[in-house]
Structures are given as C-alpha cells and as structure tokens.
C-alpha cells in the first residue's frame, strides 16, 4: 500500500464515524470468512494486529481475522499492513466491518488523536444538549410516584405511564426552576421511550431538562410560554462559583402551574461527578 498520511480534519471525520479503528495485515483480497457473505472484489480478510477502537462487547480482536468490505480494492494487496477506519457490518462466528477510510499510519500512532476526536464528538453532542436544555440541575431524587394518565401527556395513546421524581436540588446550573421542581419520566410505551433516563429514589446526578416530549423531538430551543412558567427568577452572575444556589420560591401548589420537565435522552443525565465537566461545557456553550 502506498504511504497515505492522514490530515487532522480527515482523521476527525473518520474517527467520529467509526466504531472500529485497527491496523491489520491483508490475508487475502476478494475474500470473506463471514457466514452467508459471497466473496466480492471489494472484500478482504485482514488479520488484526493493533486495535485503537472497537466495541468492548466483541472482546479482544488482536489476532482475529475479520472481513473488511472495502471502499475500493485499489492500491491494496495481500500482505499490506493497513489501518482501517470502519463501521459495523456483521458479527457472528466471525466479524465483518465496512471501511470508511484507511491510512498507512499505525493505529497506535493515531490512537490518541482518535480518542480525542471521539471525546470531542461527545462533548459537542453534550453541548448541543446543554444549549437546548431549559434547565440544568444537580441534586438527589427523594421519591418517585406515578401521575394520573391524562390525554395531554405524550405517549398517552400507546400506554405511556408518566412518573415524577421529587428532588432535593443541590444546584441550578441553567434556568430558573422552582425549588420544588420535579423531574418527569415515562414508563412503558414503544421502545423509543426506553431512551429516556428513569429516576429512582436516592439517585444522585445532573439532569438536563426539557419540556415533556418524545426523546427525538427536535425542539432544542423550546418556546418560552409564560403561562406555563412560575415567576421568573434572577439569573446567577456568570462569575458565581456555584451558579444559582440561592433559594428560589416554591410553587404554591404541587399541581399549580408546574413546568413539566424531563431528561429526554441518555445524554441528559449524568453522574454527580460529571458536574464539573457540565459546568465547563456550559461555559463553552456560552451559557451561564
């Protein structure tokens, strides 16, 4: 294989799209070891020599022979040592991947950059969640209970049962929820509702909260409806070490004008130990 260095941009692009990054030696071109797959010129069997990224559940891939569905067989030959960036294809008695890109640089050399790119991707995704959050709080779940099913709740027709988590709020990182803000979460319904983090008593963490909706609803910047809000509270000063820990008013009645908020996706809940990271990303997001 010709020497193929890789630009930082390309490395980032491939890293963020790849479930596999490994260096291997081509055992055979136009070959496969997968059940049911018919050999094609675009396939190659590759013995894995170095692994930078691979799904943990597949175990150690060192020494394994896997099938790569190539972008192109051009410039490759038996015996070549290549670093492949790839996504999943098959996992059975053997493993198959689909090439996204390749380089002659060994995986061990680019591994730190790959990990950096993937962590950057996670940060970028989290920043998007932070930007779209109406409120971000840290705290402890004190109790959970189901709420009566009413037709205005999402997933009503498919049988979603909504619950609320009563909270002891340790800090408010964004927004101005009342002191007794509750976190809503669904049980049941179609599998999409399984994406929503559930709450349980004594659970500690950081929640990125949005109005009730389906997990994939695209309402990252929800409209502000004053009818649904308690009275606004003063925003914390950006220089505050611990944003908005001052006492905030309670709702007069638990059901009176409650702003129904939830953590919609897995990225909307984090362990308490992630709070410093959330705060850093809040600043990077330009949001106090």
């Amino acid at each position, binding site marked *: 294989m010709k020497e193929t260095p890789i630009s930082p941009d390309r490395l980032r692009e491939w890293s*963020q*799209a*790849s*479930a*596999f990054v490994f260096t291997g030696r081509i055992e055979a071109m136009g070959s496969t070891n*997968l*059940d*049911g*797959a*018919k050999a094609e010129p675009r396939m190659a069997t590759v013995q894995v020599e170095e692994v930078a990224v691979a*799904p*943990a*559940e*597949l*175990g*150690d891939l060192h020494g394994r022979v896997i099938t790569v*569905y190539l972008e192109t067989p051009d410039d490759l030959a038996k015996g070549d040592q290549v670093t492949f960036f790839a*996504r*999943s*294809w*098959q*996992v*059975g*008695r*053997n*493993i*198959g991947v*689909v090439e996204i890109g390749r380089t002659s640089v060994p995986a061990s050399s680019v591994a730190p950059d790959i990990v950096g790119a993937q962590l950057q991707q996670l940060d970028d995704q989290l920043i998007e969640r932070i930007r779209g959050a109406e409120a971000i709080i840290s705290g402890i779940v004190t109790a959970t209970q189901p709420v*009566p*099913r009413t*037709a*205005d709740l999402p997933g*009503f*027709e*498919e*049988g*979603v*049962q909504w619950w609320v988590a009563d909270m002891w709020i340790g800090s408010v990182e964004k927004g101005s929820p009342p002191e007794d803000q509750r976190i809503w979460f*669904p*049980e*049941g*319904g*179609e*599998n*999409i*509702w*399984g*994406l929503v983090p559930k709450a349980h008593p004594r659970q500690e963490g950081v929640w990125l909260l949005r109005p009730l909706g389906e*997990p*994939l609803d695209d309402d990252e910047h929800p409209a502000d409806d004053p009818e649904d809000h308690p009275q606004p509270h003063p925003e914390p000063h950006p220089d505050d070490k611990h944003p908005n820990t001052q006492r905030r008013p309670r709702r007069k009645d638990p059901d009176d004008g409650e702003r129904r908020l939830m953590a919609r*996706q*897995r990225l909307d809940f984090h362990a308490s130990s992630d709070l410093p990271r959330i705060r850093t990303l809040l600043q990077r997001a330009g949001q106090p």
Partner: protein
Amino acid sequence: MPLRVINIIPLNMGAETNFDSEPSITVNPANTQEIVISTFTPDTGTVVTRGTYFFSTDGGANWAINNIVPGGTALLPNRDISVRFGGSTGVLYAGILRGDNGNLAILRTANFAGAVAMDILVDRANDDQPWVETATVAGRDRVYISSNDTSQRPNGFTASVDFSLDAATAAAPAGFTNTARLEPRATAALPLMAGNQDGPSVRVAIHPSGVMYAAYLGWRTFSATTSNTTDIVVCRDGNWASGTTQFQALVDPGDLQSGRRVATGVTVAPLGTLLGTQRIGSSLSIAVDPRDSQRVYVAWCDGLATTASPYTLRVRRSDDGGANWTGDLFTKANATNPGLAVNSRGTVGLLYQQFATLAAVGRWRTHYAQSIDRFTTTFSDLTLADVIDSSTGAALTVIIGDYANLMAIGKDFYGVFCAQNAPLTANFPVGVTYLRNADWATGTLRAVNNTTAVSVSVDPFFFHDQALAPVGNFAALTVGRLPDSRLELWGSDGGGVLFSTWKWTTHPDADWVPLMDFNEEVGALPAAVTELTVAPLPDGRLELWAATANGQLFSTWKTTTDPNGNWSGWADFNAEVGPLPAAVTALTVAPLQDGRLELWASTVNSGLFSTWKLTTDPNGDWAGWADFIAEVGTLPAAVTALTVAPLSDGRLELWASTANGQLFSTWKINSDPNGNWSGWADFIAEVGTLPAAVTAMTVAPLPDGRLELWASTANGGLFSTWKVTTNPNADWTGWADFIAEVGTLPAVVTAMTVAPLPDGRLELWASTANGQLFSTWKTTTDPNATWTGWADFIAEV
C-alpha cells in the same frame, strides 16, 4: 419431532446486555437453511446509523447480526420491525418504523447477508406496527404490509394493508402504490380530538391459492385508564387482493359491513397495562390451513389483566372461509403474544407467553402448543422457557415485546420468542443451546473471553420443530389396536429409525399424530429394525417385536392397560425364550382362541419357529422356540414373508411365502387353542397363480369376519383374495388385482400391514421401493365396500 431451542446471540457478542425483545422470524421457503430474525437489538458499534437483524445460513445452528436496516440513529436503530422472505425469490422484505423519525419504511434486499443497506421502497409518516407477509406467484413477489395507519385518524379507518403484486426487483416504490383499508366501521375516538383509530395489531394470512385473510382489532371505544372496547374482525380476499376492491369478500350478517366480527365488544386492557413488566393490550394472530383455504384460525387476547378479568388468550376457527366461527377452542389466562401457524399436514402450532407468579416472583413461561385436530383438542403444550420476569437493567420498555412469532414451512414449525437469558438448565425444560459463553454450573453469562461475568438481560430464542422424515425404503411395517381401539402404526426406515404414529382419538376418521421416533420413548436398539410385528396381550396391552439387522430380537409392551400408557424398555426376547439358529427374516403374531399370543419367526437358514404364552396370564412366560417345520411339515425353500390371522371361528391361519416363489398356508384343525396345525397347503394351487414372487403379505378380517389377504409381487403387482362367505372353511376368491381397483403405485411394494379401524373398516398400508408410504381404506362399513384411492401417508403424518 426433534425440537431444538437456540439462544441466537453469537459468541462474539458475548458481552451483550440489551433487552432484545419483540421478535419476528422468517425462513426462506426456497432454502430453509436461511433464516432471519428481527428484534430490538442495537448495532454492536457505538456509532450507530443502522438497525439490525439476525440471520442464519445453516438452518439456525449459527447466527450473525447484520447492520443494514436504514433509518437508525445513534440512539435508536429502529422501532417496530418485522421481516419476511419472498415465497421463492430469496428476497428479504422488512416493514419497520424508522429509528430516526418513526416513519413507516418498507425495505428490501436481495442479499440479506451483504453489507449494503436495504433499499427503501416506501417511507411515510404516521403508522404503527407494520407486519410483513409474502408469497411468490409466477416468479413475482406479492408482499403485504399490514399496519395501523394512523395517518387515517381523521376518518378513523386505520387498519390497513399496503401491498405490491410484484415487489422483488422494481425501483421504489416497487408496486407499493396500493393500500387496502380494512375498517368500514366507526372507530374509537382518541382524546383531545386526535382522531379515531383501530388497535395497533393488524395481521394477514395467505393461502397458496390466493385466498387471503386479514385480522384487526376494531377499536370501538378508547380509554387510557379503564378499558378499550374492541371487535375482533376478520376480512377475506379471494385473489391476492388484486381486484378493484380488496379484503371485502366477507360481510358481517349483523351490520352488512365488510369484515366478519368474530367477537364484538370485548373488553381489552388499555395499552399501558402491564402483565408482569410487559405492556399488553394489542395481541393478535391469524393463520390459514395450507390444505384448505376455507379453514382459518384467529387468536387474540382480551381482559383487563385483573384477577376478575385476566388477560386471556383465545383461539377460534372457521371452516367456511371466515363466515362462521367456533367458540373458544383454546383459552389461557394471563397469556400474551400469540403466534399461530398451520403446517402442511394441518397441524396448528400456537406460540404464547404466559405470566405466572412463583414464590412471589413473576415468571414468563413461553409455551409451544400443537393441535392435530383443528384445535378440538391440544396434542401437546411444551414449555420452552420458564424464566424470571425482570426489567432490571432494561434500557427499553418492551421487556419481552409486543409480539412473538411462529411460522410453518412444510411440516416444520419455526418460532422465535424473547426471554431472560440466565443460563439455568431448569429454565429451559426442553433444552437449549447458547452460542454465547455461559457457565451453566453457576448460572453466569460470560463475555467473549469466557472469564468476565456479564449481566443477565433478554435474548431472542429461535426454535425449530422439525418433522421426522423417513429416509429410504421402509424395511418393515406393522399396525396394532390400542385398548381403546385406536390404531398405532410402526415403520422402520432405511436410516434405521423406528417411527410410530397413532390415531389421536377413537373416531375412525381421526387424524394421525405426527411421526414420532419410537426409540426416543422406549430406548435405543443395537441396529436397524428389519422386521416388526405387534398384537394385543389378553388384557389388551400391545406387545411389539422388532428384529434387528445384527440378528437380535427384542420386544416391548405397554406397562399398563391405559391406551396412553408407557412402553417398557426393549427386552431381549431371545434371552427370555431362547436363541434362534440364525437371523430373523420374517415375523408374525396373533392371539390363539384363548387370548394367548403365538409368535412365528423365520430365519435365514430356512428355519421357522414359534413360541406362545404358556398361560392366559398376560404376564405369563413364553414357551421355548418350537420348530414349526417339524410340526407342520417342510417347505421347499426359505420363508420370505409371514402373516397370520384368526378365521371367523377364531382358529388361526398362517401364510408363508417361500424364496422359490410359492405360497403356503396352514391352520388350526380344531378350536382347541392347543390343537394341531394342518399340513402346509399350496395356497397358489387353491387361489390361483401370481405373476411373480411374493415380496410382502398381510391379512385381516373384514367387518363380517371374513379374512382378506394381500400379496405384493416382485413385478410391482398387488393382489388380494378373500373368503367368499363367512364360513370359516369357505373358499377363497381368485386373486383380484388390487392396483386395478385402488390405483397405481409408483414402485414395487416392500412392506404391508392392515388393521380394522374402530368401526371395522380396514385400512391398509403399503410402502414402496422408492421410499413412499401409502394407505387406503374401506369407504364404508359394508364388508364389500370399495376402497379409497391411495393416500400419501407420509404427507399426512
């Protein structure tokens, strides 16, 4: 039938902990080694853009996951999904709700194991629970996607079937321009003026003739908190839904609307209701008998999942194309996820999952039931899995899924269900194979390295109920009457397997149960069976003898007089009675006048021996082998076939064909059970010549007591003769050409047996040299009645 259950998570996914629920299965009819199963299983990689399915290319022994279902996101690979292969094209179709936007997508690939994403043929918003069924006609795939098309909520007619009559190769939409609306009646109003709709589950069943059925849950009232009022509705189409109107062939006599209401106004738990940890509220399955387009079965669940109103599975049947329906044929409380299928012999399979509480712990018990008599009774109901119901660790909210799936190809059933995967032997009563690492001693799952412990979760389990298929020629056949007059038939095939089947009920026209491996019940024999014979002991219990290719002779008997009682293990008969001088070439047995059995065995060294019970005690000892030649007289050559039966006065008559092409008989000369035998009489001289040497013989009494004897010949002939009157000493007719009367057979007859049905009509079986087995029976109880044409018995059982 051999039944195997396999956890399909591959070894290389050994650390997988997803709750892989809500499965569907398809087996390629053109190559049953190719099987695809869909579940809610995410991609193995962390960067996910596609959904998945599992596939096998070796009949289910090994499995792989393939990530080629489009429309996934990093969060959700796909929502609802079902899969079907085309009828003969090998093209795989899927109906999904996309992971990214929830749209209905109809997908297709000609290479289910390949790396290229499935083609998107249709992509539209607002739909639910797409379910695929297919058939191939003249090389064209007819594909039907039933769903609850919620885009129709403004008018409420949501139960729908999208279909293409030629979907295999054309570019999108590949003929999916047709949608049949099934629902003509007003449907349930949803809150907040969201419109009206039916229940989520809509299913189609296809008969090879083009007759099709569709079933749906016609929601009439909706409540998210109390109950839904539902009609169970079945529609029919007579010709592949190819006419100007579709699925409107059935009209309900009650309201003259299309779609027959099998049940009206049933109360069903709202969709959010839990049975254990699994939500319920929309459970439906339908299947049509491939032998009879008018026979259709439907299963659904209703009830509120309370003690007073348990969520109850019901099965009903129509024998007239859905116009009229039986009442409940099968019910099971606290059950869900029914899957119905009918195989090529008309056996109905039913998969269901029943919730039970044991020691205050909820369990899901997955059952696989069969009925061989149109669900008049249940033939078997096996528990495939009995596992803890737990959502602990579940990322998804459908723990075992809103459905499971059963299908039939030929006589075989294939199914898939989802269940907790703790590797505990007791959880899988019929056995199970795990492809992923599991420590069965400690009940622990292991990762790929076979060291790291892995949390339990829910996995998909494939099962295959494979019909026994005789191989090669039948070496021997015999049939006997159980104490309740039901017949049981045994046959040994060229592969050394000893099969049996029996009438399921005492009705003369009752169905036969599927072929069973008799030795699985009784125990192994040292070699293939070469000869068989059976007869009732004085108390009605059957005793069966089997000679084996290694020269031994064994017997087994019913241990009680219960017709369904167990069989003893094989006993070495020669060890009890004494050795024979050589291997057995033929066997026959019959009761003497006092009920004691007498057994004859011919040997390769031209011997012929008999033994008999010494007393009328059914458990009495046998006499030592007596030299029958010495008693009755010599024969000109070695015996090739034997048969025996009582004359109308109870005296036995025995026939022996010899290697030189002759046929002789002898009979008791008086009614004394210990009386002497006549000398050998030349039966050919009495009845007439046969065109060739006898290859097999059998004999039985007609309803009036007259014997009829059959003899097959080496030139492919089959002849019979019978007593002309009921006088036991009456003459025999000349040989009649039985082939001419009943019909031709494809090859020379190699074995025969005959016995009276419970109403006295004889049924005769004949195996042929090309490995087939046929039967014919008297059309009425008149002793002189005609015979039916030959029926393919293997196809029946």
